[in-house]
């Protein structure tokens, strides 16, 4: 029985992996996709010193319930939407998590002892005339029929989306309505940087090209459109297919076991 105890012990240790997140952890999981602290804007504003610029309660509201600010026609929110081209999406951050994030952000305020050299970048990427993307091509990139030139994995590895023609991965969120959430500008920013947990490392030296980004945006635009929304998600046969094959294999073993009597 000592063995069982050892194993239970290991399981106990590792069950704690997910809990006890600090503000920094949460920031890098939920915010860092669009925000940096020092070093310029991504698809959302640079958050260095944000606790000096804005009221703490306001920050908490935009983190936990951005839609409320839009409904109230909050002037700052409206200005931000105008500047960045889309509204910050609701990321489902709890009050408790928001407090931790704000605590973390306070560490980067002007009064904080920490110093981060700020390289100011122009808020707007010097945008060449936007390329017209091809949604079919975008879909092929999404499913991996066409590979990203720099060698990055296809989106379907971890994400699903309506209209991809296959159930996608379940490791990461469904991207069907990404276009609606981020808009073209936001989507471009996100696809250029891919600053999400795991993705930022997986695509580190495998950035998408401008053409690929344009195709992906075209695909997401089509997927998010109303016509596509009506489509029922194509019911894939996985994992039932695996279970069926497994039963066949067990049948073969049964036949095999009867071979020698």
């Amino acid at each position, binding site marked *: 029985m000592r063995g069982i105890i050892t194993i239970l012990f290991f399981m106990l240790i590792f069950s704690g992996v997910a809990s006890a997140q600090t503000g920094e952890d949460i920031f890098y999981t939920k915010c860092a996709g669009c925000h940096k602290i020092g070093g310029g804007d991504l698809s959302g504003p640079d958050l260095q010193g944000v606790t000096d610029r804005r009221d703490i309660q306001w920050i908490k509201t935009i983190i936990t319930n951005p839609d409320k600010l839009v409904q109230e026609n909050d002037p700052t929110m409206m200005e931000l939407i105008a500047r960045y081209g889309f509204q910050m999406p609701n990321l489902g951050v709890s009050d408790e998590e928001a407090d931790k994030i704000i605590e973390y952000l306070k560490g980067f305020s002007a009064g904080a002892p920490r110093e981060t050299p700020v390289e100011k970048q122009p808020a707007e990427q010097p945008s060449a005339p936007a390329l017209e993307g091809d949604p079919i091509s975008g879909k092929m990139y999404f499913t991996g029929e066409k590979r990203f030139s720099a060698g990055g994995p296809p989106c379907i590895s971890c994400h699903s989306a309506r209209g991809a023609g296959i159930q996608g991965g379940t*490791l990461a969120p469904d991207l069907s309505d990404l276009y609606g959430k981020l808009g073209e500008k936001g989507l471009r920013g996100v696809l250029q940087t891919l600053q999400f947990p795991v993705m930022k490392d997986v695509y580190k030296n495998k950035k998408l090209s401008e053409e690929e980004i344009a195709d992906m945006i075209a695909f997401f635009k089509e997927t998010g459109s109303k016509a596509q929304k009506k489509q029922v998600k194509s019911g894939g046969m996985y994992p039932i297919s695996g279970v069926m094959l497994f039963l066949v294999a067990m049948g073969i073993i049964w036949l*095999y076991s009867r071979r020698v009597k």
Partner: protein
Amino acid sequence: MLDLIIFVIIPYFAIALAVFVTPYRYLTNRLDWSAFSTQFLERKKLVWGSIPWHYGVILILAGHLIGFLFPSAVQSILSGIEAIVAMESIALTLGLLALTGSLVLLLRRFSSGILRNISGYMDWILLLLVLYQAGTGVYMGIFARWGMEWYLHTAVPWLYSLLTLNPDISIVSGLPVIFKLHVTGAFLILALLPFTKFVHFLFLPLDFIKDPPLLYRWAFRKKL
């Protein structure tokens, strides 16, 4: 810190044990280099345990290895949605075979009195470990698809970074807990390899496949 333990310390520890202790055991103590077959003690349930387990796990392990050795070849095989579904279905089948097999083997050892009596604690640890490993694998196959795709871009680069002695855990530390559990189980098994009957894994009995089936003959035989 925990990630460092899971993705660097345990793996190196396990690899060191496997690499250095295995030859030592081979050279000094080869007499108990065996799978310690218990077929003689219990035969009926063994078919449902040993066969699914071994066919499942050998092929699954081969799959992990092929993905590791030839990531770009596997990548091009997976181009196309039908290919992904087909390959993942096969992998899930094999995983389920291994899961069923290891579960049956564990229950078999537990339910047969004579077997339980001769089982040491290591027998239980090994069976629980492989059951756990098959369980976490199947769980990921179903709930964290498509593992075959993301394995190539997360676990494989990390394993290469381990082998080139330049461990880079950034790429795997953001993956879900179930993946970390699976990795930990894998390296625990590797660490136990040189000390237990797991060493029989290092001898693939390929000649055995073409042998005719073994026939047990009894002088008299009761209906079982």
